[in-house]
């Protein structure tokens, strides 16, 4: 197998004195979608933040495109080709839809013209955003805001996209709409890490799956091979758990 585009090696970390991650090994290959599942508090978001340089980690713990990049500040990770759709969307309040997108364009890995993603293309994918491009972000619905958050991440022209709970709090119809564009993203050569609480959704959308429990990886394998019982055991940490 080729070298992974992104990998972590015995990654440990947390907030201040509180350790939340205990040696995470994870690999992501080019064009692949992996999903990271686990209960609340398993450490999934902490893991993404550690990879992205938002929490302190040692350089060798994160390798990206062959280089040790652990602890590199987030804005430099964006230049290298990482992007994140953060949990809770975290859009820039007080700015319009298009301004939110332009912040990403201003700081992207590649100029808008040279990358895979342009505003026009995203407005085709999410026509509603085209209609509301000059409206302040606060006027949009939750689903529409999630579309802006995804657009903003894609306009960074990432090679690796980290998605943190993009289905959270959205209506099923909107979730389908959003997940429907994942193949389009991978087709553009971007690899994806999906953090999800919805196991069914995570299995369907990914090639491989990692399950986390209390800061450790408890299960990994091809998404299609893993049974629901295995997942339940890894997810809850007990062998007799009911899925």
């Amino acid at each position: 197998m080729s070298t992974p585009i992104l990998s972590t090696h015995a990654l440990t970390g947390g907030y201040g004195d509180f350790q939340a991650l205990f040696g995470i090994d994870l690999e992501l290959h080019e064009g692949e979608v992996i999903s990271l599942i686990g209960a609340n508090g398993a450490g999934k978001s902490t893991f993404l933040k550690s990879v992205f340089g938002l929490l302190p980690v040692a350089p060798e713990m994160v390798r990206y495109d062959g280089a040790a990049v652990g602890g590199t500040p987030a804005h430099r990770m964006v230049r290298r080709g990482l992007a994140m759709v953060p949990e809770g969307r975290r859009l820039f309040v007080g700015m319009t839809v298009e301004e939110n997108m332009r912040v990403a364009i201003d700081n992207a890995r590649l100029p808008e013209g040279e990358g895979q993603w342009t505003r026009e293309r995203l407005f085709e994918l999410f026509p509603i955003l085209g209609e509301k491009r000059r409206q302040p972000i606060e006027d949009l619905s939750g689903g529409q805001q999630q579309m802006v958050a995804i657009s903003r991440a894609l306009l960074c022209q990432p090679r690796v996209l980290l998605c943190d709970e993009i289905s959270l709090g959205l209506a099923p119809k909107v979730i389908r709409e959003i997940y429907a564009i994942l193949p389009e993203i991978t087709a553009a050569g971007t690899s994806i890490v999906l953090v999800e609480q919805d196991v069914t959704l995570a299995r369907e959308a990914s090639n491989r799956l990692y399950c986390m429990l209390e800061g450790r990886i408890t299960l990994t394998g091809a998404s299609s091979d893993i049974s629901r019982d295995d997942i339940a055991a890894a997810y809850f940490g007990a062998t007799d758990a009911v899925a």
Partner: protein
Amino acid sequence: MQWLDAIIQGVLLGGMYAQYALGMALMFGVMRIVNIAHGDVMILLSLIAVSLAGVLPVGNIGLIVVIVPIAVGIGWALQTFILNRVVGADPLPSLIATFGLSIALQNLMLEVWSADTRSLPNSGIASESFQIGPIYVGLLPVIVLICAFVLTGGLDAVMRYTRFGRGLRAAAADTEAAAMTGVDPKRIYATATAIAVGILGLAAVFAALRATVSPSDGSAQLIYAFEAVIIGGMGSIWGAFLGSMVLGVAQAIGLRVDPGLGILFGHLVFLLVLATRPEGIMARKK
């Protein structure tokens, strides 16, 4: 007629306040950094200007050309070495840090320049005035007002339409999310403070031309700048300009009522705005 005169003088005074308030609008209004040393930095720049004028015969325009880059450097250093370490949701650390800096600066200025009041040599424009009907208007205050207007328009456009402006607004709205979108918050904040103090450099030269300055004058400038920003509405650049006008007019009218009431009227209008429209007169309704 004397009230019309008061309003005109108030607007002209507001022009001076607007120059103090613009930097504050950027730092306090947008970045939410409480900089207690704002007024002292301006006085420092005024005193540097006065001292330089004695050595370098460059004229007033030349003085601005020299002072503004110094101000930009001070602003950048202030943000990089002090304020970037204390920014955050809690305003107390930045308040305390800049409070300490303010005391240190005030007393440093006392050591260097003594408590005497100083001003720039009275050149032509400072004393010229012209007449509109029965009202006399000083030329310098009009220049100050025009400069403030142009600066406000320019800063507002920078905030709206440039990469820097978008990045700064993004970082102010959500620092971590901005970093995830490729913005370097520390660098953009340093640039913003450099701009804010740079504007203060211009204001410093005008302040020394218009009137006298002494090391202890900083806190008055600070309170007017804060009032103007809050009256106008946090985050709004034009709001700070308008707030300065409101403050200037209130003070000028108070001064006509009784010479002891000028500044008090300004404070009362500020408290009135806080009581009735705490989000400021220019703020977008939520």
